[in-house]
């Protein structure tokens, strides 16, 4: 039986691992290579690494760090942050990255998604959509690490990206990020219903029940989280964890 994927999302800043709340208050939580080694031992399904400042600092992806991550990462992994061209993507795949996540450029240059899907196959092209409610309570797509608002509706944008050739949608709620108060099930449900490609839910997971809700109630294909895998207890002590595989199977399949 195909297992539901449960994917730690790890944020990189200055080549360290950090965790944010609502895309702000970055807190250092450790060394990325050390985290990969722990996640290997725990036999994690998949990993997502996002360099959250590459685009806003106008930087390319940190190739040396990604090379080190790839050489230790014996599970599929996706990288996002600062990807602008198909050449960037080709270079990442050569290092051993399986998938790339594209956020700002998916909005500013949608032809990159189309071209990349033609060259590398849809299965390796993930469009990452950051969503925040505006003053009128409407969901809007944000780019530039959550700094720049667009007028795009996340549902319409997800459908456009599927048509362009995206293989998966990584759907992140800025309002829920780091809160551990549960996913935005309404948003996840709306997007999952509108596209045929897998939707990975992210933003807000604090307990195993939240994963089950995103899958069973909202129709996500996979779940992702940050704080859930790096913090422990009410004081948010840093401890990298991952539930046992049989526990996840019992709750999610």
């Amino acid at each position, binding site marked *: *039986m*195909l*297992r*539901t*994927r449960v994917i730690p999302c790890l944020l990189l800043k200055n080549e360290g691992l950090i965790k944010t709340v609502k895309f702000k208050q970055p807190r250092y939580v450790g060394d990325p290579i050390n985290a990969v080694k722990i996640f*290997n031992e725990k*036999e994690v*399904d*998949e990993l997502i690494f996002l360099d959250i400042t590459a685009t806003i600092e106008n930087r390319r992806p940190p190739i040396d760090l990604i090379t080190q991550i*790839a*050489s*230790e*990462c*014996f*599970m*599929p992994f996706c990288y996002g942050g600062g990807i602008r061209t198909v050449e960037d993507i080709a270079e990442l*795949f*050569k*290092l*051993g990255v*399986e998938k790339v996540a594209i956020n700002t450029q998916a909005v500013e240059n949608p032809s990159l998604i189309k071209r990349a899907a033609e060259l*590398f*196959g*849809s*299965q*390796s092209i993930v469009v990452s959509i950051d969503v925040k409610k505006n003053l009128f309570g409407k969901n809007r797509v944000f780019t530039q690490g959550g700094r720049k608002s667009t007028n795009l509706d996340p549902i319409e944008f997800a459908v456009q990206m599927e048509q362009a050739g995206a*293989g998966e949608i990584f759907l992140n709620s800025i309002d829920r990020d780091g809160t551990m108060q549960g996913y935005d099930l309404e948003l996840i449900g709306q997007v999952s219903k509108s596209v*045929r*490609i*897998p939707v990975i839910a992210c933003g807000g997971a604090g307990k195993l029940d939240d994963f089950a809700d995103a899958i069973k109630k909202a129709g996500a*294909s*996979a779940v992702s989280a940050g704080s859930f895998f790096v913090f422990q207890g009410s004081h948010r002590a840093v401890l990298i964890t991952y539930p046992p*595989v049989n526990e996840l199977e019992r709750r999610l399949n």
Partner: protein
Amino acid sequence: MIAIVDYKMGNVGSIANMLRKIGEQAVVTSDASVIEKAEKLILPGVGSFNTGMVNLDELGLLPVLNRRAIEDKVPVLGICLGMQLLTRGSEEGNLPGLGWIDAETVKFKFNGEQPNLKVPHMGWNSVVIRQRDGIFEDMDGESRFYFVHSYYVRSDQESDVLSTTHYGHDFVSAVRRGNIMGTQFHPEKSHKFGTNVFKNFVKIRC
């Protein structure tokens, strides 16, 4: 020395990383003279069937690969697209495959009966071992592997089928005919389960 055949179809880095981890010497190469001397070959691959065959042809690798696989009988491991290329051909394209195993490559079709099943089949799934084989040595109980594919191999020979996996229906997830082996899953991305497959491939003598 193991040659990982680089025909511009992705993920050679992951396989080189995994072999390095288990302490095995491997070289990533598109060079016929290196393939000529290799003791074992790995044919990786992510992407489309036709492009794969075109690239092998344009790199001038088809004669040396055929000679090493068929005449010299060196152990060959095809992974994902690399396994599909071992067959006679694919619904994905019109070019003939390598034709080293009696099999063809066909697309997952679910015709709306199972609307929840998405294509590609992507993620971790169980592999049911159908035949004891060196490639699965020391692997008891349930093994999980990472898959990402829209096409699968349909074998004419029951005796070539090493394992099956269920996605809508059972399909062949590992195959072997003599020195020619293939896995539809990605052992290089499948934790200890994949590490075992590579360790076993290193030990295999044909």
